[in-house]
């Protein structure tokens, strides 16, 4: 079994894409954890899948739609929508200015 190796740069790239700031300790910690995860998934390589059609889902369902129309049963009020937000102002979610 080929051992996958993730390097520091790859971890930093992933952190950047996820908008995370990692300490040096964290970089090493996540590098190891992610490496283990990738290794675990690599177990799948042991299966012979030559005769298996590629798929992207496991339910065997197709064509699940809803008919256009407004239905408020699951709608959230402004209060409910904002309830768990850490930073808010005048009923807007707030982040540090990005532009």
């Amino acid at each position, binding site marked *: 079994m080929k051992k996958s190796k993730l390097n520091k740069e790859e971890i930093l790239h992933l952190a950047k894409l996820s908008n995370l700031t990692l300490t040096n300790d964290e970089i090493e910690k996540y590098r190891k954890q992610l490496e283990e995860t990738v290794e675990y998934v690599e177990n799948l390589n042991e299966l012979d899948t030559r005769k298996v059609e590629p798929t992207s889902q496991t339910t065997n369902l197709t064509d699940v739609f809803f008919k*256009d129309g407004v239905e408020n049963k699951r709608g959230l009020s402004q209060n409910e929508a904002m309830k768990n937000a850490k930073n808010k102002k005048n*009923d807007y*979610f707030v982040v540090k200015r990005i532009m």
Partner: protein
Amino acid sequence: MFKPVIGLEIHAELKSKSKMFCQCSADYFGKKQNSNTCPVCLGLPGALPVPNKKAVEWAQLIGKALNCRLNRNSKFDRKHYFYPDLPKGYQISQYDEPLCSQGYVEINQKKFRIHRVHLEEDTGKLIHSGVDTLVDFNRSGVPLVEIVTEPDFDNAEDVKRFLEELHTIIRYLGVSDADMEKGSMRMEPNISLRAIENGEEKRQQFELPAYKVEVKNINSFRFVKQAIEYEIERQKEILERKETPAQETRGFDEKKQITYSQRSKEEAHDYRYFPEPDIPPMTFSREYPDSIKVPELPAQKMKRYMAEWKIKEQDALVLTRDINTADFFEMVISKCKVPSSKQIPNPNQSIANLIINKKIATTMPVEEFAAKAMELLQPKKTDEKALYILINQLIKTNPKVAEDYKKGKTNAVMFLVGQVMREMKGQADAKIVREQLENELKKR
């Protein structure tokens, strides 16, 4: 020498009743901030998106109107990027199996190819204020159709015409307001320049230049044209210095009519697309595309007006730019019974003129308009005797005009024609009046 290579991405919000993957209202305009959401469009954990059937059909309708192939198999994918207007950290879009591909739009005998038409969800709205960016998710999840062209354009004027035609087509289909001021239609040109040597394109003419510049946030056809013209000059200057323009996203400043670098979005894009596991794939039968009915499109309507009703090309164009005007015109034609005569050889063209020149307000009901049009287009009965007297009287009281006419200023007669028409309160045929006037003037 350089030749521009331009491709376009166009986004149009669909005016379905509900959003793309949940049943919140898609009509978010003017609503209180964050008052039009649910767990799905707010990206709360565990919420399950389900696609809106109408949005899928409308995206296919757009595709079919653009001569695309409707694909038998299609699916949604997750496009990952981190931005505050995107609550889930990914946008549900389509990657390798779009609903429609390989179409074209023909304008003035030129074909511009469509690469694909796919469906995705709109993002929330950001307001930048002081040190904060404020987020309103009312728009999050509204169905958005993305139309991508091939890089078939080499000048800004063709791009403008294409976009105007596309805008008209989408409005004809009735699937989107395509209102650029409200942002329900957005256009992003990709621009680069290809080197041409000795007037001939290099052998690598089918290869695209090594960079491209995308201009975002343009909200009028005129601004698209200006942005492209500015970019062509800017890139030319860089290339002439033997440098390569940076691959980047730029914004457009309407006041200064220039593009500017948007550094915040420059980071390397790594979207990590993968199939959306929460939404089963879509399948369509071989017969299905036949059930998508495309109405008569502006270009076809224009051709029909010219062939069937002998309308002038320019007028047929004007009449078909807006579906409401075209409908109005057709209804008036069907209600007006005006016989063709010497004075009115083509009543249909005359009706077209009345609408285009706004001789009668087009805001009135069709019946009223038709009645007025018939009245105006009645062949004028000219009282020959009264006309003769009036003409002689006017020539006498305007000796200067008669003199001018004799000196060869034949246009002077038009002044008298106007006077006669006014005196006769329009109850005369201008052609006959002019003939008679010239006859009398020549006698003197």
